């Protein structure tokens, strides 16, 4: 039977409409339906995309208010905020760069800057950094290959929280915080009891991106390092490396080994004598209504008159992608967010104890508070992870080695040797790829 074809009706129109519509969708997405590749709102304002990690309503409100203020003096622009999470933010940012859908202003973790800078994904902000140099702290992670790629926005370090109630049980009426590693070890062992269930210290285990932060303070305090100064080779296989890892292993024996959130919870519930934690715990303690009598101290020395009291410092930075559509507006917005007022408000909302702005850190709110002042002093002796483009992989290798030693799978010497083997393989593989 011969089939008849219909030439009238809706179908021929559909035939034309569908491909045209399909072709227009990506075109519209690519050009963002704006002028000259710039995205424009229905009121004709240019859109500035800001990707950030603060999702807690109290903090988000402070950031939103600061942005609204900026918009009111820059009516040409409208800021679109996109929230990221620390669990998958890195992937989303990489995917955005891969798909060329980059934001204009971007919050980055301190240990990601070198990675993105080395890949040519960020705008060189050296001139802007120069202007801020004396006002802000926390520059090392922003510097890579003699250029500055981001502005510090938020800094944090770790101190030793000390439960005075538990200390009184073991030390009597006038408890004394440990000044050296030996004292710390002794006090943790003295405080660990079965009934009531108390632990001397909480140690992190099997928690990616966190575990190494609890090892490196001991390594650095003992004079060791992760990489050599030129970052070409692993530097863990030294006496300082052995001593610090052995100390961490000894310290963990019989203690509460958990993830950071669980350790903090145990401290709030009065189950831990010591918790190596950040300023977020101070905020939690205040909000939880915990009746634990506590104080905070800087990291102990390896031994009397030996080493330093170094802690780990992390931070969050404002960077501008190289292919940002509104780089000028992004710089202006970053300047606004870094104003003294906005840094102070951010710290009030987050509970931050170490403001990135030097003038804010001098404010009585921080300097006169017994706990916050410890954080500010500790920040003076804190270090960040090396600004290395392959840090994400190096960090994983480091955590693997620490975990092997903590679980007794490898001796301290073997764990350090195996870790160095992994790190050196990463460094040499990347060198080969570069060539």
């Amino acid at each position, binding site marked *: 039977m011969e089939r*008849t074809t*219909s030439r009238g009706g809706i179908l021929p129109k559909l035939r034309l409409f569908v491909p045209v519509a399909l072709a227009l969708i990506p075109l519209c997405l690519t050009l963002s339906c704006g002028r000259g590749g710039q995205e424009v709102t229905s009121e004709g304002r240019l859109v500035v995309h800001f990707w950030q990690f603060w999702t807690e309503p109290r903090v988000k409100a402070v950031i939103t208010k600061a942005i609204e203020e900026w918009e009111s003096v820059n009516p040409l622009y409208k800021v679109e905020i996109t929230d990221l999470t620390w669990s998958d933010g890195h*992937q989303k940012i990489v995917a955005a760069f891969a798909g060329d859908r980059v934001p204009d202003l971007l919050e980055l973790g301190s240990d990601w800057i070198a990675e993105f800078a080395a890949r040519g994904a960020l705008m060189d902000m050296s001139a802007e950094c120069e202007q801020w140099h004396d006002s802000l702290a926390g520059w090392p992670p922003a510097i890579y290959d003699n250029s500055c790629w981001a502005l510090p926005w938020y800094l944090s370090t770790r101190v030793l929280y000390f439960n005075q109630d538990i200390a009184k049980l073991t030390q009597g009426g006038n408890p004394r915080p440990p000044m050296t590693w030996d004292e710390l070890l002794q006090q943790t062992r003295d405080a660990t009891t079965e009934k009531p269930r108390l632990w001397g210290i909480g140690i992190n285990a099997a928690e990616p991106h966190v575990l190494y932060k609890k090892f490196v303070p001991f390594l650095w305090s003992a004079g060791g390092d992760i990489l050599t100064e030129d970052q070409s080779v692993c530097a863990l296989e030294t006496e300082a490396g052995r001593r610090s890892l052995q100390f961490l292993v000894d310290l963990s024996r019989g203690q*509460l080994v958990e993830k950071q959130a669980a350790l903090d919870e145990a401290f709030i519930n009065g*189950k831990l004598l010591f918790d190596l934690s950040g300023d977020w715990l101070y905020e939690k303690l205040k909000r939880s209504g915990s009746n634990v009598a506590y104080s905070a101290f800087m990291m102990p020395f390896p031994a009397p008159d030996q080493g330093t009291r170094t802690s780990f410092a992390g931070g969050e930075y404002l960077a501008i992608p190289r292919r940002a559509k509104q780089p000028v507006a992004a710089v202006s917005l970053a300047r606004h967010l870094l104003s003294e007022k906005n840094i102070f408000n951010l710290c009030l909302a987050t509970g931050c104890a170490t403001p990135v702005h030097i003038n804010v850190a001098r404010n009585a709110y921080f300097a006169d508070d017994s706990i916050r002042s410890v954080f500010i002093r500790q920040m003076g002796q804190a270090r960040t992870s090396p600004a290395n483009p392959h840090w994400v992989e190096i960090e994983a290798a480091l955590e693997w080695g620490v975990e092997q030693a903590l679980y007794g799978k490898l001796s301290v010497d073997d764990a350090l040797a195996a870790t160095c083997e992994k790190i050196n393989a990463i460094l040499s593989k990347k060198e080969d790829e570069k060539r």
Partner: protein
Amino acid sequence: MTDPNPPAHADRTAWVLVSPWVLILGLFWVYPFLYALALAFAQFDVFSGQWHWVGVANFAAVLVNSEFWRAVGHTVIFTAGTVPVTTALAILLALALNRRLWGRAIFRAGFFAPTLTATVVTALVFLHLYAQGGYLYRLAELAGIPVPERGFLLSEKTALAAVMVMDIWVSVGYYTLLFLAGLQTIPAELVDDALMHGASGWQRFWAITWPYLRPTLLYALVINLIKSFQVFTEMFVMTRGGPLGATTTAVYHVYSAGFERFDLGYASAAAFVLFALIAIVTVIQFRFFAFGRGAEE
């Protein structure tokens, strides 16, 4: 009677009607599949977007990688531990809930509730229960059951088993519902007939219930096996593959390679190897568990 040669405009109308689905299928299934397949034969730089063809090198790297096979091993253990237990428990519960019990609706809803809860939420609750000093940990201690020095999820020996227990708890309600639906298809006359002829409970189960449940059982086994081979969220939220890689499953291995190390070529190749493994196991399942299908037909 249906016209064996429908007019051409009917064909076109059919195409118009199915085109949204075809478009979605093409955009979100076929295109990503082909893209991933191409990636498996390349090294891809996510920042520059540059492709470098490497042939089968990624597949070779997957096949000789002991960590991949260790992850596959964990996946097999997870599957072997969860699928039979979930299925057996679900059948038992379905048989129990199919009776006229007091509060049957409440029990049915209760068993199904964990399935409705987001895995992430359940995982966060179990994180607390399993922690050193957590409720389950203390309960086990009080009951004299040996507990690991660290929490259940932080001990190499217990971490995978702990996640498996949670998975069974979450899944059993869904499969119970499936089996309950299967039981509802049994004609009441058949059961009454068997009762009249004095068949025992066990005889009724083998002669009537079991044959009617077989199609549901095959479906449940295939679906649960595929789901178990793809287990990821639990590991992502609860253990991040640790401790010491004890809970790194195949999909977590793929995720880690693709989205932590951005070795997308290797990750794609590993995903295709996993796809092949799942396909083989599913075919075997059909062969072994589709027993008696011919007789039914």
